[in-house]
C-alpha cells in the first residue's frame, strides 16, 4: 500500500497554514502507511548563491542528541563557509551562502552516518520511521509554512523499513518524489543510470524512479517531457507525486493500479490516495473532486 498526499495553496495568506492543513491529510493515510512518513515542503526560494541542506542524524550513534552546533562550527572552520543550523532533534536544515557540493562532501567525509535528505534553494525535507502522527509530531509539521508540499505514509514492500528508505526521495536539487506502488524494473533503471555517474543511496525501487526523472530534468527535459519518458521507461504500478520549486506533478500508471483523488478550490489543490485524507479541508464539499486519469500528466503551478 502506502499513502500519498500533496497540497498546494493558491493564496499567499494560506502559506502560513500549509502545515496545519496538511497534518490531518497525512494522518488520514495511516492505515495505508503505518511504518514511516515524510514530507518535503517548498518555501520561499533562497538567493541564487545560497543553498539549504536537510540532514538526518537518526542513523548516527548520537541520534537526536547529535551536536549540530559543532557541525556548524566545523563547516566554518574547515571550509570557511558560514553555516546557519536550524536543528530539531535528529533533524537539521543547514543554510550556507555557497554551493552545496563542498559542504555535502565535507559532511559525508566527517560524518558518514549523517543522512543528507535534500538540497536546494526551496526544499526542506523530513522523513523518519514511525506512524504518521508520531513523525508529524516529531518535526512539528503543523507549523510548516510554504507554498506547496509533498507527503507520504509508507507500508514497506520493496525494501526494509528504515529512515533512508522512507519517502520522499530526492535527487539533484529542489526535486522530490513520493510513490505508491511497486516498480518491476528498478534494477534495470539503476544499471542504465549508474554508468552515467549517478549513484544510489538505497536499494529502494522508488529511488530509481526519482533519480531517472531528475536525470532527465537535469539533461534539459521540460517536466512534461521527462514524465513522458517516465511512462516509457518505468514499468510497474505507480502513482507518483513530485515536487519542484514551482509545481506539483502527478502521474498514474496506465492500469491505474494505485489510487489518487484531487480536490481543487480557489484556495488550494489537494491530492491524496483517498478522499478520507481530504474530508477535513475547508470548503471541500464545494471543491471540484476528481480522479486523475491513468497515463495522464497533471501539473499544478504554485
Amino acid at each position, binding site marked *: 500500500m502506502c499513502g500519498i498526499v500533496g497540497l498546494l495553496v493558491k493564496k499567499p495568506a494560506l502559506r502560513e497554514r500549509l502545515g496545519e492543513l496538511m497534518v490531518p491529510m497525512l494522518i488520514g493515510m495511516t492505515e495505508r502507511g503505518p511504518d514511516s512518513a515524510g514530507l518535503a515542503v517548498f518555501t520561499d526560494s533562497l538567493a541564487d548563491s545560497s543553498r539549504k541542506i536537510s540532514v538526518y542524524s537518526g542513523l548516527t550513534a548520537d541520534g537526536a542528541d547529535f551536536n549540530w552546533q559543532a557541525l556548524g562550527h566545523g563547516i566554518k572552520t574547515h571550509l570557511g563557509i558560514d553555516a546557519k543550523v536550524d536543528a530539531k532533534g535528529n533533524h537539521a536544515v543547514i543554510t550556507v551562502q555557497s554551493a552545496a557540493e563542498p559542504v555535502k562532501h565535507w559532511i559525508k567525509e566527517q560524518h558518514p552516518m549523517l543522512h543528507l535528505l535534500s538540497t536546494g534553494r526551496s526544499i526542506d525535507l523530513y522523513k523518519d520511521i514511525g506512524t504518521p502522527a508520531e513523525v508529524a509530531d516529531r518535526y512539528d509539521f503543523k507549523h510548516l509554512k510554504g507554498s506547496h508540499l509533498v507527503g507520504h505514509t509508507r507500508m514497506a514492500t520493496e525494501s526494509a523499513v528504515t529512515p533512508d528508505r522512507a519517502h520522499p526521495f530526492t535527487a539533484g536539487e529542489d526535486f522530490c518524489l513520493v510513490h505508491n506502488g511497486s516498480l518491476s524494473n528498478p534494477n534495470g533503471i539503476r544499471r542504465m543510470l549508474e554508468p552515467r555517474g549517478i549513484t544510489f543511496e538505497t536499494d529502494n525501487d522508488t529511488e530509481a524512479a526519482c533519480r531517472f526523472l531528475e536525470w532527465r530534468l537535469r539533461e534539459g527535459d521540460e517536466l512534461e517531457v521527462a514524465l513522458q519518458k517516465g511512462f516509457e521507461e518505468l514499468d510497474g504500478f505507480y502513482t507518483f507525486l513530485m515536487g519542484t520549486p514551482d509545481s506539483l506533478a502527478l502521474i498514474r500508471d*496506465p*492500469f*491505474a493500479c494505485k489510487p489518487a483523488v484531487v480536490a481543487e478550490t480557489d484556495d488550494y489543490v489537494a491530492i491524496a490516495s483517498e*478522499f478520507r*485524507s481530504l*474530508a477535513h479541508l475547508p470548503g471541500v*464539499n464545494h471543491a471540484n*473532486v476528481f*480522479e486523475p486519469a*491513468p497515463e495522464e500528466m497533471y501539473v499544478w503551478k504554485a
Partner: protein
Amino acid sequence: MESLTFDLAQQALRDLNQYLHNEAKTASVKKVIVANPDGAHNIAVGLDCPVDVEVVGHAGYYAGGMNKTATVTINGSAGTGVAENMMSGKVHVKGFASNGAGASAHGGLLVIDGDAGLRCGISLKGGDIVVGGSVGSFSAFMAQAGRMVICGDAGDALGDSLYEAVLYVKGNIKSLGADAQIEPLTETDISALKELLSAAGPAFAEHDPKSFKRVASARSLYHWNADANQEY
C-alpha cells in the same frame, strides 16, 4: 420513525453496519441517512433487507458491496469496488465511481451518474450497470452475464474475453478487447435499453436506445484452438 441518521463524524461505522444488518430488518425505519461519510470504507456493505440508505457525501472503498435487496444512494463519489458482488437491490452513485465498480455483481442495478474508473463491471455475473458518463479501460473484462449501459465513451480493451454479458455503448469505444465485437442492435436490445435507462432514472431515459452500439462476445475463445498459436 421515518428516518434515522448515523453521523460518522460522531458514530462508528460498525454501529451503522450492525444496525443495517440487524435492527433494520424489523424496524419501522424506512430510510437510514449516513452523514459525514468522509470517504470511509465499507459503508452499508452486506445489507440483506429492503432498507433505503442515503450516503450524504463521498464514500470510500466497497460501498454497498454484496448488497441484497437494499437501495443505497451515494450523493457524492464512490471509491474502489462500489457495489462489488451485489446480489440484488440498487446502488446509485450520483458522482463518479472509482475502479472496479460493480465488479462481480450477480444481480441488482448499479447506476453511476458520472464517470466510472477502470475495470467497471469486471467479471460481471448477472447484475446490470448503467453509467451516465464514460468508463475506463478494461471494463467488463471477462463479464459472464448481465448488462452494461455506457452513455459516454469506453476506454481501451472494452469487454476483453467476454462471456455472455452484453454491453451497450453510446459514445466512442477506444478499443475492443480480445473476442469482443460490435453487433447489430435487435428489438430485444432496444427493449432492454429502454428498461435499463428508465430504471436508471429520468435523466437517463432521455437517451435514444437506438443510438447505442451492442458489444458482445464473438465466442471464438470459448474453445481451445491449437492453431491460434497463443496469438489472440
